[in-house]
């Protein structure tokens, strides 16, 4: 176990700045997920930590030691690549053994180490195969085994589930946390899949355009995304985003959706009159009786069952598309006119020009009040 500190990292390729003054701390034994769209600089950052790319500015500290100018082979990290990067001319055994042969361990020790990790990853029956003869899933497990076999204190995983099919990805998403916990290593995990990020991360760092936009636990990021972009990236189905101008009444702040008032209890009066974007997670909306207070008329357009939930696409009176999610198996309208109710306490308000999340009033106090 070890800590990783990145201080003011800058990396440029020609005139393009790929990493822009990036600072990040990963605690001992923590699993940090680097999440962001492609081109955000996640992979470059990971390679920089591994030591195969040098930063133009800034320092990389591993276990408190300045490793910025240390060669990759002396950093003692393990890494799995998105494209597996297996050695095509070596058997799976030799591939996995490569971190052990570097330490000049004895033959028996190497064989034992490889066997152990191969058994853990269920590839001990294909160790004699060359990468060409391995299935995609086996390749991916071989690459993981190679990263794990030396028990490195710092493990870098670059989207290892990207190039495997959906079923395998699901399996590995369940298996990986246990594996990584057993390793006890500090892990930096890169992914573009928010579910993977939520499932694997102790903390998530959201990256975009070479900067870290938000760092927090999966719950923090889901419940308080720092801006519209992050809100859009986290969540499936995607969050509903509606242009609104909040208003003020005696009871507090409200927005009008299809001429129906929805109260936003969490927000202070000072947001009133501002151009805003209202973020509504599909699960914050439910179908309601026409007579219920606050019911908004909609037209149901289509319904998509997604295993554990059912997602409905509905049109408001003004023609705006709204996604509504409900647990699978619960009743709901299939077509035609219906009504929805909005849970105002689960709504987000973003500044329309900057995209930033507007601060909620005394949210912490309210939360602890609810809990009590």
């Amino acid at each position, binding site marked *: 176990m070890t800590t990783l500190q990145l201080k003011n990292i800058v990396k440029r390729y020609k005139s393009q700045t790929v990493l822009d003054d990036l600072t990040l701390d990963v605690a001992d034994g923590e699993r940090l997920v680097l999440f962001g769209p492609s081109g955000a600089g996640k992979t470059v950052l990971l390679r920089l930590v591994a030591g195969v790319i040098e930063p133009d500015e800034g320092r990389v500290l591993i276990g408190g030691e300045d490793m910025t100018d240390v060669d990759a*082979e002396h950093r003692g990290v393990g890494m799995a690549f998105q494209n597996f990067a297996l050695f095509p001319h070596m058997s799976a055994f030799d591939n996995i053994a490569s971190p052990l042969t*570097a330490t000049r361990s004895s033959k028996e020790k190497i064989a034992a180490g490889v066997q152990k990790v191969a058994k853990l990853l269920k590839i001990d029956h294909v160790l004699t195969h060359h*990468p060409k003869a391995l299935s995609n899933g086996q390749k991916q497990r071989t690459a993981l085994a190679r990263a794990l076999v030396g028990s490195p204190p710092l493990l870098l995983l670059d989207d290892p589930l990207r190039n495997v099919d959906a079923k395998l990805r699901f399996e590995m998403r369940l298996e990986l946390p246990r594996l990584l916990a057993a390793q006890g290593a500090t892990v930096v995990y890169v992914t573009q899949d928010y579910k993977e990020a939520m499932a694997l991360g102790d903390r998530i760092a959201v990256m975009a355009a070479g900067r870290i936009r938000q760092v927090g636990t999966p719950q923090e990021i889901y419940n308080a995304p720092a801006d519209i972009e992050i809100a859009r990236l986290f969540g499936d189905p995607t969050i509903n985003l509606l242009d609104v101008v909040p208003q003020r009444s005696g009871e507090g702040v409200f927005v009008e959706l299809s001429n129906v008032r929805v109260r936003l209890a969490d927000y202070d009066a000072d947001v009133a009159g501002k151009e805003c974007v209202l973020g509504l997670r599909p699960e914050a909306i439910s179908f309601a009786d026409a007579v219920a207070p606050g019911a908004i008329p909609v037209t149901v357009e289509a319904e998509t069952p997604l295993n554990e939930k059912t997602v409905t696409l509905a049109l408001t009176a003004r023609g705006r598309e709204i996604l509504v999610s409900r647990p699978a198996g619960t009743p709901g309208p299939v077509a035609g006119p219906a009504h929805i109710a909005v849970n105002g306490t689960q709504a987000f308000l973003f500044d329309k020009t900057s995209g930033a999340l507007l601060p909620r009033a005394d949210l912490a106090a309210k939360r602890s009040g609810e809990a009590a």
Partner: protein
Amino acid sequence: METMSPLERVLRGLALTLVVVFFMFPIFWIFLMSFQTNETILAIPPSIVFSPTLSNYAALITGKLQTAAGTLDIAFMRNLGNSIFLSVASVAVALVLGVPAAYAFARHKFKGSEDIAFTLLSFRFAPPLLVLLPLTQYFQWLGLSNTYFGLIWVYQLICLPLILWIVRGYFEDISADVEYAYRIAGHSWFATFRKIALPLAGPGIAAAGLLAFIFAWNNFVFALVLASADKQPVTVGALAFVTSSGIQYGQIAAAIVLSVTPTLALALYAQRYLVEGLSLGAVKG
């Protein structure tokens, strides 16, 4: 393949036959000539029916050339030995120098790297005759003319650019991630070069080496000017068959057969590596 109509198949076979005949016939004819005497070769009309003789080969191997004017000494076997030594040594030196250089050019973009690589390639553009005169003068000053060392040095003009540019392409085709993975596993850059880059570019290196060997073997003008009789390769040595009493076609044919054999054998042997080398890019990860 399955969609080919019978007509297409016939035309295809015809075209292939034409190509094979076009390229193979001269070799076949030379091969026949090498077993004939000058008289039968020059007979009109030519005939492929003749009583074969080994006298041409015998003359080459013993080094005694029987002509109408008497017996001439020829150094063909020595020339053949020179050819083999010069080509092998030149390619070996070019590989030792060129492969690491190619790796450096492929993996490290340093200031002026493209310029240096291009300058090395430009040695191939210059007509040999252009550099030959100054080269001869230099070599005389340096005491390098008529030495194997000097010849091998000059042959680098032929071999080094070829190997550098071909092998560089193969190194560039190797995914950088594969090398990174080996470095991160704890191996030095040199171990990575030896254990990852070299084996993966192996077919390409073999192909480049073979081509360089053929070019070195076929070189004529450098050896003609820079070496005297005892250091000359077969390409220059063949001139000896143009004697005062006529051109010895039979011996020339036998000499050609003998001098083509090593490169032909090498090419046939290396063929599978060449094909493998061409498909290297397709086996990533």
